C-alpha cells in the first residue's frame, strides 16, 4: 500500500518561491549579470516562475535557460534504459554571469554535479548558485544549495515528488512510501 502525504500546497510553494526570488536578489545585490537556468524536467517551470518573480520585482527581464543533464550523468551508459533526451536551450554565453541553477528536489547531489559540468561548456560563469524547492537530504557529494524552499528530511524508501500546475495541473509536494 502506498501512503501519500501532501507536505506543501499551492500557497506554500508560491510563498517559498517568492522568498527565494527575494533572497537571490539580496545575495547578488540586484539583477546585474544574473541568469536563471532550470534543470529538466522538474526545474524548468520553477525557473520560469522564479525568473518571472525576479523580473516583476526589478522591472527588468532576467535571461532564462533550460539545461538537460542526461549526457553528463555518471550513470548514463550503465542503466539499461536510455533516458529520453531533452533539449538544452541556453541562447546566451555564460562568461562572467552569475548563474542561478534551479531544480525541484535535491537528493544525492549527482544531478547538480552533472549540471555544473554542463554549464562549464557554455562559458566561465563568475559563480553558480543553486536554488531548490525541496532539500530531502541523503547527499552523496559535497554539494549544498544556496536557496531552499523547504528542508524535508526523508527516508530512502520514500519518494518526494513536486507536482506543478503547468504539467500535472496542480501545485503540491507529496511524499509517498514506495
Amino acid at each position, binding site marked *: 500500500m502506498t501512503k501519500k502525504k501532501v507536505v506543501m500546497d499551492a500557497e506554500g510553494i508560491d510563498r517559498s518561491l517568492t522568498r527565494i526570488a527575494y533572497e537571490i536578489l539580496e545575495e547578488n545585490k540586484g539583477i546585474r549579470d544574473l541568469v536563471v537556468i532550470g534543470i529538466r524536467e522538474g526545474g524548468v517551470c520553477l525557473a520560469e516562475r522564479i525568473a518571472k518573480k525576479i523580473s516583476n520585482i526589478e522591472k527588468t527581464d532576467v535571461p532564462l535557460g533550460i539545461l538537460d543533464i542526461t*549526457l553528463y550523468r555518471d550513470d548514463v551508459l550503465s542503466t539499461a534504459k536510455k533516458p529520453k533526451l531533452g533539449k538544452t536551450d541556453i541562447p546566451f554565453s555564460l562568461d562572467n554571469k552569475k548563474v542561478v541553477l534551479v531544480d525541484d528536489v535535491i537528493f544525492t547531489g549527482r544531478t547538480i554535479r552533472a549540471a555544473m559540468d554542463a554549464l562549464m561548456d*557554455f562559458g566561465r560563469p563568475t559563480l553558480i548558485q543553486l536554488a531548490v524547492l525541496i532539500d530531502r537530504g541523503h547527499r552523496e557529494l559535497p554539494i549544498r544549495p544556496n536557496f531552499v524552499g523547504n528542508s524535508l528530511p526523508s527516508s530512502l524508501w520514500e519518494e518526494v515528488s513536486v507536482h506543478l500546475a503547468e504539467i500535472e495541473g496542480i501545485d503540491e509536494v507529496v511524499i509517498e512510501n514506495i
Partner: protein
Amino acid sequence: MKFERKDILGLKDYSRDEINFILDTAESLKEISTRKIKKVPTLRGKTVISLFYEPSTRTRTSFEIAAKRLSADAVNITASASSVVKGETLIDTARNLESMNPDIIIMRHSAAGAPHILARLLKHQSIINAGDGAHEHPTQSLLDMMTIREKRGKIDGLRVALIGDIAHSRVARSNIYGLTIMGAEVALCGPAMMMPREIDKMGVTVHNRMEEAIRDADIIMMLRIQLERQKNNMFPSVREYAKLYCLTPDRVKMAKKNVLVMHPGPINRGVEIDPQIADGPYSVILEQVTNGVALRMALLYLLAGGK
C-alpha cells in the same frame, strides 16, 4: 519507448515509434554542434571504428565528428590502405578488430549484406551499416527524414518524389522503407533500366515521366547515377539522361510551392540537378549534411552501453 537494438543494419523492419524516437534524440543532440565547446562527455572511454571498403566524404567525416563530439575515440580504416589489399578476408579483418575491443564498428562495403555478417559474427560489438552495396544506407534515410520532419513538422501524408537510378541506390531503398513506414506517399521515376522489377510491391507508385512523379510533391529527392555499380552502360549518354531526368527550374515549378529539394550527395551538377536548383531557395542539401552529424550522434548514443 525503449531502444533495444544491438546493430543498425537497415530500416526494413523498423516501427514508426522507433524511427520517431531516433529522430527525437537527434533533434536534442543537434544543439551541441552550435556550442563554442562542441563536445559532451557521454561516450568517454568508448571506441568507435569506421571500416570503409568504398570511398566516402560525407558519411565518414560525419560519423567521425559525431563520435568525437560525444567524446568517443574514433579510429578510421580505409580498406584501400589496409591489409585488405594484402588479401585478408572480411571475417579475418573483423576478428582482428574484435580482438582490440572496440564498442561500435561502422561499416561500408560494396557487397550487400556484409555488415550483417559482421553483426552475426561479433557478439559484443554494435555494427552500423554505412551503406552495403545497392542494399541499404539507413543513416542517410534517417537524416533525410529528420530534415523533412524538422522542415514540415511531420512525414505522414507528404508526397515524396524519388528520381533517378533507383535500382542501384541504397539511399532509395532505405528511404522507400523509412518513408512508407512513416506514412509518406512515395512516387518513383527513373530510366526503365534503372527501375528494379517488382518495385511496385514496396508500396510506392512508379511513373514513366518525371513530371508525373513531381506533380504536387512536397519533397523531391534526387539520386546520383551510380556508374560504379553498372556493368554495362544502361543509358545512351549522360546528356540524354540529363534531358529526361535533370531537376530544372521548370520541373520544380510542377511541385508544391514550398517544395523541399534534397540530394544525398555527392551531386553531379548539370546531370541530375541544375546548379540553379542545387544552390537555390528550395534546396536543403547542406542542411541534410548538418543534420547527419546529429543523427549519427543519436545512433552512437543509443547503441553505446546499457545492454
